[in-house]
């Protein structure tokens, strides 16, 4: 049976088409529900194996990126999402979806660490291709140390930790740092433009200790063909197959009874 993805929709979601396309290419069936529908019928979450929140500017990011949708998710869907996770399902958020997961307290959920996502150090929206280095915590999805090229396109992608470096150590200890921005040689790098947000310790994505709640700032769903790479597949940005490999790996994390 194909994994069933429930894609969340809300006012301001705008990366839904390409995310759906990526999931379908990777072998999933996708249904989309508006948050207003889910608020009235949260039990619809029971019909999926993967719950995904696409990128966008939900509610205009008016009160901070993802803030209001996070509040809605927290208040109306928290129980169903916990249940989905408990029965082996996967939660995924990209860009604004990642901001929602973090602000709803679903990621990284490491005791004692308070964190948020805020404006890039440049205080500007930045759109550019980034190289993401796969850390051990994401080894169940992609080869550790390999590079996942993806498009950064955000203004509020700087991860901030209440206690800075001490919190980085706690995250490292907990094994939740999934992806780091890297330079052309493949080494983790927090310098602009390799790391467009100036985020602490070059962190680009987080994963829960279960390995099944995952979020990242850049968009792997925009990397589904060599034609779309900055050098059109000449090699400096991979082969154009890394994005699809990521989504296949992501779908494979879901271990709900219905997929057994």
């Amino acid at each position, binding site marked *: 049976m194909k994994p069933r993805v429930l894609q969340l*929709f809300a*006012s*301001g979601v*705008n*990366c839904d*088409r*390409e995310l759906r*396309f990526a999931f379908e290419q990777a072998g999933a069936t996708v249904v989309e529900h*508006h948050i*207003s*529908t889910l608020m009235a019928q949260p039990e619809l979450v029971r019909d999926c194996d993967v719950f995904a929140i696409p*990128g*966008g*500017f939900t*509610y*205009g*990011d*008016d*009160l*901070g990126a993802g*803030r*209001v949708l996070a*509040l*809605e998710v927290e*208040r109306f869907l928290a129980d169903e999402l916990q249940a989905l996770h408990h029965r082996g399902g996967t939660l995924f958020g990209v860009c604004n979806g990642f901001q929602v997961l973090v602000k709803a307290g679903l990621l990284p959920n490491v005791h004692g660490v*308070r*964190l*948020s996502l*805020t*404006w890039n*150090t*440049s*205080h*500007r*929206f*930045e*759109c*550019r*291709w980034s190289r993401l280095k796969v850390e051990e915590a994401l080894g169940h999805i992609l080869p550790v140390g390999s590079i996942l090229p993806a*498009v950064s*396109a955000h203004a509020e992608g700087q991860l*901030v*930790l*209440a206690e800075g470096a001490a919190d980085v150590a706690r995250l490292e200890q907990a094994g939740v740092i999934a992806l780091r921005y890297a330079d052309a040689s493949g080494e983790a790098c927090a310098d*602009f*433009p390799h790391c467009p947000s100036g985020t602490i310790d070059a962190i680009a994505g987080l994963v829960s200790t279960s390995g099944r709640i995952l979020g990242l700032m850049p*968009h792997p*769903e*925009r990397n*589904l063909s060599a*034609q*779309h790479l*900055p*050098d*059109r597949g*000449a090699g*400096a*940005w991979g082969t154009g197959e890394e994005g699809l490999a990521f989504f296949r790996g992501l779908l494979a994390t879901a271990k709900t009874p219905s997929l057994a």
Partner: protein
Amino acid sequence: MQRQAWRVELEPASGRSDPLGEAALKSLSARGLALNGPLHSGRGFLLPASLERETVATIANRLLADAVNESVRLIAPEQIAETGAQTLIVRRMSGVSDPEAQTATRAIGLLDLPGIAIDSCQVESYRCYRAEDAVDGEALLQAGQRALANPVIEETQLGNAPLGFHADAPSRPAERRELPLSTMDDATLQQLSADMSLALTLEEMQAVQAFYADAGREATDIELETLAQTWSEHCKHKTLTGPVLFRQLDEQGQETERREYSNLLKETVFAATQKLSPDWCWSVFRDNAGVIAMTEDIGVAIKVETHNHPSALDPYGGAGTGIGGVIRDILGTGLGARPFAATDVFCVGPAGMDEADLPPGTMSPDRILDGVVGGVRDYGNRMGIPTVAGTVLRHPGYVANPLVFAGCVGEIPRKYVDKAARPGDLIVAFGGRTGRDGIHGATFSSEALHEESETIDAAAVQIGDPITEKKVLDVLLEARDADLFTSVTDCGAGGFSSAVGEMGEDIGAEVDLESAPLKYPGLAPWEIWISEAQERMVAAIDPKHRGALQQLCDTHDVELTVLGHFADHQRLILRWHGEVFGDLPMSFLHGGVPQPQREAINSAPPQNATAWPESFHAKELLEQALGHPSVASKEAIVRQYDHEVQGGTVVKPYQGAEGHGPGDGTVLQPRLDLPQGVALGCGISPSIALLDAYAGTACAIDEAMRNVVAAGGSPHRTALIDNFCWGDCRKPDRFGSLVRAAEACYDGAMALGAPFISGKDSLNNEYRVGDEEFPIPPTLLCTAMAIVDDVAQTVDTTLQQEGNLLLLVGNTTAEGGGSVLSELLDLGPSQVPCPSWETSPALFAAVHEGIRQGYVAAAHDLSEGGLSVAAAEMVLGANGLGLELDLAQLPGQENQLPLAARLFSESPTRFLLEVPREKIDGFASLMRTLPWASIGQVNASGQLSIQDGGTAVLSLSQSAIARANGVPA
């Protein structure tokens, strides 16, 4: 009177960076206010005074503030803020939209707080700037008013002054008001037009007077407003569609030619489209956008708009609503198209201008550019539409009257291209509410700007709310796919009056104005009718679909209203609670405007040859050319736009491994499951058009075509869009160059087989100071959209492979008037280049075939700065590759041209093509007798080296090119 409120003020917590505060400090310092300590930026919110402190604290901490990043300050309703004397508050004026507040109101409902019902908690948002050290409050206020606020839409105060909710907007009486036209003489008629901001001429007022005399009654205010909107230059294009007598003068001022047009646009631009009428054109000049075929079943719609005068007053809001408006044009094409690309072109004054040199009442060009870029960025990014093509031009002629062009492209199934409202259909509106914003925008844009524009025309400025528009988009596309609409259009200039008036033109319509949902009470019926409040669409639906549409709107949290219904009486009837306030026959509304013949005079273009310099420092000149504002890197702007959203940006605006190489056209793949795509390009040549409007327009068309062909678009399926931005064409000299531009459009379209499918004019781009009038340069923006059959058959401008040959295709000629070099060396007016319509179509076809068959590895068109700049740009994006070129290898007699001309001439219809040696024969067979030559090859040097038959001319490394071009780090 303000109403008391709690203040919640949030600042970056201590130790966190505050780039907004730092930027504000710099802006104040530029205005002459130097602060000793830091300036802290903050976000402020007003909450109802009736709330308990505990409730306010919960809202502040759980919703408004970021717990990790921000610190919270609560100020009780009657409390004076301790730091108020050193805090500058910037808030929106009463009636200006406040999307943050709307979102906050909604979100507060989610907190489940005692005593607060859903969607009931009033909120207002503002910004604050707190100086850490004591400061002279008056000085802070003075500097801050200009440096940190836009006085057109914002007001400033100090933090220790009372701050509460705005008082309710003033109420205007809702009464049926008659204007006694029958008693008025000509002077009174003109005075009435001015007093009501109708922008109607005396002849037009007389036509209106005669109509009411025949009808045997007086006009009502709402009828006059309706006529003024519908007859405005903005909506009716009276100049371009009216009769004109054109005279061409020679250098002595003697008339050499004379011709008449009864409808200039119809006999030039439209005429070419009609004569060409290719079967791949599905909808031309009859809808909100033109539509051409991409596949058999899927079309692509394109429209480019201007938003010049609003952007002059409020660059951020003006550009944002410009892009918002053109997106609605695409949504309102056929039964709805899905936007997948946006374009923007800005024309502003020179960089670094002194405030003192600015005409009174105008903003500095740099501030205008910052504002318009921000407006497009924040609107386009939130909509999820990639902004992928455009440019920035700087010229002194745009200082007081900047130009902002915004374009949008959408995808539409063929079966949804046609639409027609039917009698009995309901008129529904959905999206944003109606307020006083944008009253008289259509008539305002039809007048010249002047010193007091910023104070008296503030109501013409509209503030955008992209998320409301995104919700409208979501509803509209779902409703279209459920076949709920019989017609749909956007509310643009003229608001409901234009939308309903146009949809009901052939059948008639009845509207109950009291049913429109308002942002605040107190609007007069005529204000509701012509308000240009943003983010509203109007549709015709069968009454049986009302429930289904309502349900869709409920899901997406969009407000739906039935305004009235379409009828079969060919009248427009406007009611207020049942009483008829307006009743006009559609025939007079749409056909009654008088069209007097206008005069147009064109002076002779310069005949003298360009004085190319004989001795010059080639390397320095190339570096200067690379840094010229028209050539300099726009990457810093492009990276602020999400030009990759939707995942279909194949040929990108900036290219190569590091993304620094400037592209020509961009190629988008609107459907990831299909190989087809579209190439987009823009051409604009005001510096040539200033000398010769025909040649400047022809060069703009050629440039747009070069852009799309170089990227891989098919010249056989290219549609063009015109945007004429001119001075006041009631003056014969302005109109003369416009006639020549329209003639160039006809000639170009016919020669290239590329029809214009949509367009827009913005005339009256003049600025008046006292009696002096400053028109902008004649500016035609030509946007090209070409079909790409397979996005894999497209190329970048970036060098690909060591050992490949570099070919120059097309003729280089000696006309250098209007060129970058002419400006850099101050060569003065001289002969200008102009494309040859005889040879260019074959050349475009051959280059396209070369790309399609895979003979071409990289392609770049030659534009501003000519061959040397184009070659440097190909090196710029390359991964360590370089070029060695020999200018003695130019085809035929061209190697006899002065060296400076060979390096910098901007002759049109030329390309540099990178072709592998083994493919050169194949390519040559395509070129037949067309002009081309191999002038060098790709090497691994990472630099551009140019020689002239053995004599070294210049050598420039990739990093030096990047530096000269202003490539961001």
